């Protein structure tokens, strides 16, 4: 485990923590944003709006603390790809949605390109954190029986 990996994982965790907060406080607004993407069926909008902020919070805490780091890293990467592909899909369908990434406040229109670039960078950050984890012990727990 390199210092670079710890730094990247910590940064990723901090981003997930920051992203979870506003959504945890305002689930209805977040549900409206998810619905705007028109990716999920209506029946899944509210469950996703309730689950995603908590998942981000738990992932953020685990990434920062370095606990269950492999599972947290893979899940966070899957989430980042899902978010980015949802944005790309909306863009390709001509939708102009609020990102819902860090804030649930209405941002007005015209920011899709910025959202795609920013979330694309987060995807790169997630991949970098995953690929730099090395093949050694992946938790802070001491190695036994060495």
């Amino acid at each position, binding site marked *: 485990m390199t210092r670079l990996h710890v730094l990247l994982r910590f940064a990723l965790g901090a981003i997930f923590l920051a992203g979870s907060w506003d959504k945890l406080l305002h689930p209805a607004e977040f549900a409206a944003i998810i619905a705007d993407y028109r990716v999920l069926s209506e029946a899944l909008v509210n469950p996703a709006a309730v689950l995603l902020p908590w998942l981000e919070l738990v992932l953020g805490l685990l990434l920062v603390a370095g606990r269950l780091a*492999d599972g947290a890293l893979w899940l966070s990467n899957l989430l980042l790809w899902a978010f980015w592909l949802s944005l790309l899909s909306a863009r390709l369908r001509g939708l102009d949605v609020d990102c819902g990434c860090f804030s649930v406040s209405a941002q007005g229109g015209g920011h899709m390109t910025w959202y795609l670039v920013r979330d694309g960078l987060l995807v790169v950050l997630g991949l970098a954190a995953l690929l730099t984890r090395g093949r050694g012990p992946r938790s802070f727990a001491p190695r036994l029986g060495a």
Partner: protein
Amino acid sequence: MTNRATLFQMAGILAVSALLAAFSNAVRMDGLPLLGRGPSGESGAEGEITLDQAAALHAAQQAVFLDARSAFEFDMGHIEGALSMPPEEFADVFPSLASRLTGGQTVITYCDGPRCPLSHQLAERLRAEGVARVFVLVNGWSLWRERGLPVIRSEAASFLSSPPPNECTVCGEDK
């Protein structure tokens, strides 16, 4: 690649997150209904239409476009062929257009911004008056302009958005 332990970790994280989410949603005052959409459990009563579908109907002249924004915004610029019908002026404007809108024609309402409620309000009023085929083009004005679809702009709006060709914006000595 992931191994079995990592998959177990992922499943555990998902399970714990789901439990926390369900519990917090159950106890908080503004929890969402998990079966259905929206705080009140309502699903969108009025249909929505995509930009591609709306553009195709516009090109084929098979839909009436109603601009739900203010008359001032309409005057500054609107979708080509659209009519102005802000919801607050519905009672005054609708009677003069009723025959055109209630004949089975597809009607598309729009305003500006992804959360703009005006187009939905207008659609609801139209439905209440018996207009059957009403669709909302969400964030219609912005999407329409960004796609470069036909619009009518006032001279003032055109002047503000772009300088006339062959006319200097920062005029120096040389011509």
